[in-house]
């Protein structure tokens, strides 16, 4: 434990801004991926272990499209939609067969896809770590704030994260489709009895969830190294976000992601040895004190 350097950092504007930015970057990427996972769990009731692999594929696709088209916005859109389409395919072909079975099989089927997709990534993109680097549009001097420098790309990611959070919330709460999705999460039989096509809703929700993971991967591609297996650490962090925020809750996921981002960024200064363990302890405490998480369960 190193509380004195934590306090030193908190009173030093440079360090404070640095750590806050890195907390927010971490939080936004985590939120994008975890919100998809949370949405899928809320509606389909399946904990998708392969969600981290969708994030990985999103990063790879974006990298490939960026190299191919040299347009970053186009690469993001293609990567993100590519994963969305793959998600719908995945749900229709594999996942739909195991909704009614024991959770053991659900966990194991999605786990099997971690192995499969990691190897697919090795086959297609090779074993090497890929670093993409900031896209051309962001190759400009970083912003200077109180003596610390913030790369413009970071600001872009944070803004995108907040916009997506707001859009997702508005989609779920202010549109007809959102209402349908929330109703399905509550009682899919009832929605089906009312003549709505729940099959379509399931596929759509998984597609949206996959797209969010893909977007997370797309935005992470320029700042993190891309390699087969990059998803397996991320998916555990996402589980924590979903559990802490409340399974199925988007605002919960947002809050939990921010909390975990800050715990990471400042924990590394204050508790350098156990900084990673902190968030697991947070999860354990939340599960025991309030098992439904910050914002209840199955409430979108």
């Amino acid at each position: 434990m190193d509380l004195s350097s934590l306090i030193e950092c908190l009173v030093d504007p440079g360090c404070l801004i640095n750590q806050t930015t890195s907390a927010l970057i971490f939080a936004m990427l985590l939120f994008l991926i975890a919100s998809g996972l949370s949405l899928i769990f809320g509606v389909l009731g399946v904990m998708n272990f392969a969600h981290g692999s969708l994030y990985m594929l999103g990063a790879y696709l974006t990298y490939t499209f960026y190299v191919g088209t040299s347009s970053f916005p186009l690469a993001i859109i293609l990567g993100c939609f590519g994963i969305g389409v793959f998600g719908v395919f995945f749900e229709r072909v594999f996942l739909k067969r195991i909704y009614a079975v024991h959770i053991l099989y659900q966990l194991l089927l999605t786990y099997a896809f971690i192995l499969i997709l990691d190897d697919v990534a090795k086959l297609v993109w090779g074993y090497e770590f890929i670093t993409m680097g900031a896209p051309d549009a962001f190759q400009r001097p970083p912003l200077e704030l109180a003596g610390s420098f913030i790369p413009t790309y970071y600001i872009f990611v944070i803004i995108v994260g907040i916009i997506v959070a707001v859009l997702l919330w508005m989609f779920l709460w202010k549109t007809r489709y959102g209402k349908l999705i929330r109703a399905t999460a509550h009682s899919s039989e009832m929605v089906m009895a009312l003549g709505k096509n729940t099959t379509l809703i399931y596929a759509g929700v998984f597609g949206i969830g996959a797209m969010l993971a893909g977007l997370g991967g797309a935005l992470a591609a320029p700042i993190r190294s891309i390699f087969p297996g990059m998803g397996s650490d991320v998916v555990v962090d996402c589980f924590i976000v979903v559990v802490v925020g409340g399974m199925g809750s988007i605002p919960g996921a947002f809050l939990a992601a921010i909390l975990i981002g800050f715990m990471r960024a400042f924990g590394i200064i204050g508790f350098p040895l156990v900084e990673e363990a902190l968030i697991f302890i947070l999860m354990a405490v939340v599960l025991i004190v309030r098992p439904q998480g910050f914002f209840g369960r199955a409430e979108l």
Partner: protein
Amino acid sequence: MKRTILWGTIFGAALIILSFVYPSKFLINLFTQILIMGLFATSLNLLIGYTGMVSFGHAAFFGVGAYTAGVILQKYSSSVLFAFGTTIVFSALAALIIGSFCIRLGSIYFAMLTLAFNQIIYIIVIRWTNMTGGDQGLIGGIPLPPFLSTPRAYFIFTVIVVVASLIICKLVVDSPFGAILKVIRENADRAYSLGIRVKSYQLIVFVMAGIFGGLSGALMSLSISGAYPDFCYWAKSAEPIFMVVVGGMNSFLGPLIGAAIFKVLIAFSTMYTNLWGLIIGGVLVLIILLVRKGLVDYVMELVANRSVDSPKRLLSPKETG
């Protein structure tokens, strides 16, 4: 009870004799690994198959056992007995602490919480560098006493430890205690209303699974003369689940057969390709989508259906989550 011990002894003796009749280094090594992983998977099946608790963090105990035995033999003592005794105590303690948190929650939350504790153990292993070697793992070799230093001697040692552990597990699941575990699996609420202290039973079986998981970890670290953080990474917890599901969770020997299938699959696929994940993953997907039944369970049901007189199994896995 006598039959269990008898069959166990015959099985163990047969394995040992086989290692003399057919002394292939490759096979002895493979069978050592299969037995170790078989014990690991069987210990997990006490939770999954017998009590209905899907733990996704069993590698925590494998890691605790592997590091405890490894560190003690490397740094503190040359007694294998002491190392295994300490392993039992430490894995039991770890399981007691982790279990008393996890059993408060059901189904998916239980799985998530065991996974979280699994990662806490992993982080402890990574960060406690001067004890565990951190990222590098416990390298530099683990000294073994002379009577265990050849592969065959270690194989015989493994056979004895694993068969003895399996006999104990079998006796436990056949006992009245085991019967209550099955009641809890089928309907925990009803068990509770019958006056069964569900949580106590769950905690006891969790500790038991932890002890045997720890023992298998200790056997593993001694067999490869090192312990690595991978042993307790969360993804390692999926391996025994694979064995349980593929071998069959409703038969006592299912997980052991599952371990054999897993190890043979890996051994063969790594001969031709290093993309073994594709093969293991593919097999898993096919089994889950097509049969959803382990090999031993499948065979047992065939046998049961042949003989009309034999009563059908009353306890089948619950198909609804």
